[in-house]
């Protein structure tokens, strides 16, 4: 009788554990924020932001309850050329001293299919906050190394520098900047 009761209790608890929303902390070592910007209407320059932190919650049972909160350090910009990086950090572009972080905080999530979400949130860049909607792909989840649960997501979206009061478009770079963000979260 005691054993039966224990089994029944387990049966009640298991679904809750399976469908609980899991919160993952961004693992900076396995996360990456790449930007792609046009140069002088001629070519394309790629660069990255090397430091990002934050967390995201994935709710398997109800993806609309998922949430994303990511912060990228503007001063960690790296375009592979130090002089250019210094220029990018200044008021001609990011103004990293005045606006040290670039942030995205979700406000609503829509499920597209099993692997894709449409996430609307407040994107803050250069001190300007705008609501944007970005596609988020749920790449995968698993245990690696043993004892550490991981979840991987990726998003690719485009913004306009002028929407965020940046002056880069008048300095030989394209107004449109593509951002590619890959984040691995751990718990």
């Amino acid at each position: 009788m005691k054993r039966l009761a224990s089994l029944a209790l387990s049966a009640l608890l298991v679904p809750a554990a399976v469908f609980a929303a899991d919160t993952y902390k961004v693992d900076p070592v396995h996360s990456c924020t790449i930007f792609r910007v046009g140069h002088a209407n001629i070519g394309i320059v790629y660069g990255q932001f090397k430091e990002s932190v934050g967390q995201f919650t994935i709710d398997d049972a109800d993806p609309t309850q998922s949430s994303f909160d990511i912060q990228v350090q503007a001063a960690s910009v790296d375009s592979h050329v130090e002089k250019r990086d210094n220029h990018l950090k200044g008021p001609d572009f990011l103004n990293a001293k005045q606006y040290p972080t670039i942030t995205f905080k979700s406000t609503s999530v829509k499920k597209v299919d099993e692997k894709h979400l449409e996430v609307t949130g407040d994107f803050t860049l250069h001190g300007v906050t705008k609501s944007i909607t970005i596609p988020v792909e749920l790449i995968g989840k698993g245990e690696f190394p043993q004892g550490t649960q991981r979840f991987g997501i990726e998003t690719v979206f485009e913004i306009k520098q002028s929407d965020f009061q940046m002056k880069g478009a008048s300095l030989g770079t394209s107004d449109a900047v593509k951002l590619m963000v890959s984040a691995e979260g751990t718990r």
Partner: protein
Amino acid sequence: MLTNREMIFGIMLPLAVALVIGLIAWWSKRAWLLPLGGGIGFLLGYASSLGTTGGFGLPRLPPGDGTDWLFWAALPAIALAMLAGRLGWRWLAILGAWAGVLAWAVARPLVPGTLSAAEAVEVGAAAGVIGAVVVGVHTLVAGKIGHGWSVLSLCVVLGGAGVTVLSSNLRTVGVYGIGTAAAVGGLVLFAPRLRAAPAVAILAVSILCGLLAGGRFYPDPGVTRIGVAVLLASPLLMVVGLAVPTKRGWVRGVAGVLAVAIAVAAITAPAALAAKKAAEADPYGAAP
């Protein structure tokens, strides 16, 4: 290297506007129009850098970038300079203290991350004192040596400050400085007849302090502390002209402007050469 757009709209346009308004001022004998010419030239050059599709734009109010306070805080500076030009009283040199408000306005958005509130106030106070002293000295110098020489020396300082800021990873603000120098330079010919050097000095020293506050605190590496100090003090070297033992005004004027130019070059030339060398050694080049 400057782009064609920066050359045409950032520098040539301010010069042309200043020349036209200066000519009107000269013809109508209205001294207060001269700082207006320099000011409108500066504002147009600034606005030309904010258009995303080749047009003109205005910075937000309140500005996003702290450096954009340069634009908005220059408006009262233009008004004060016009007032000084209209009234022509010597004690109006005190209006040069607006330079302190402008420098503080530019530096303040970096509080508390880069600067403390007290440091921003100190920057403003120091710039205010320097602004008033520069205008006072130029009021004296203009009367003894000539208003044209006084305005020419201010043009040299602004140009040097612009190049130094541009070489310190703050391209847009550097171009604003060079554009302002062009506009002030366009007033040189008209200043003697109108005796307007003090009024122009109020505008010039205000923008100079704003430029240097931006160039010092926002970019990396930014203008050095010594660079800022020398560039701010350089307009005072016009007094060298007063020490030249001659009655010929132009000799004293040349001596004064040369003294200013040497001080400016001592800061600007190494900064510009270092930037040029870095650009040559680096695939990034001089343009983003």
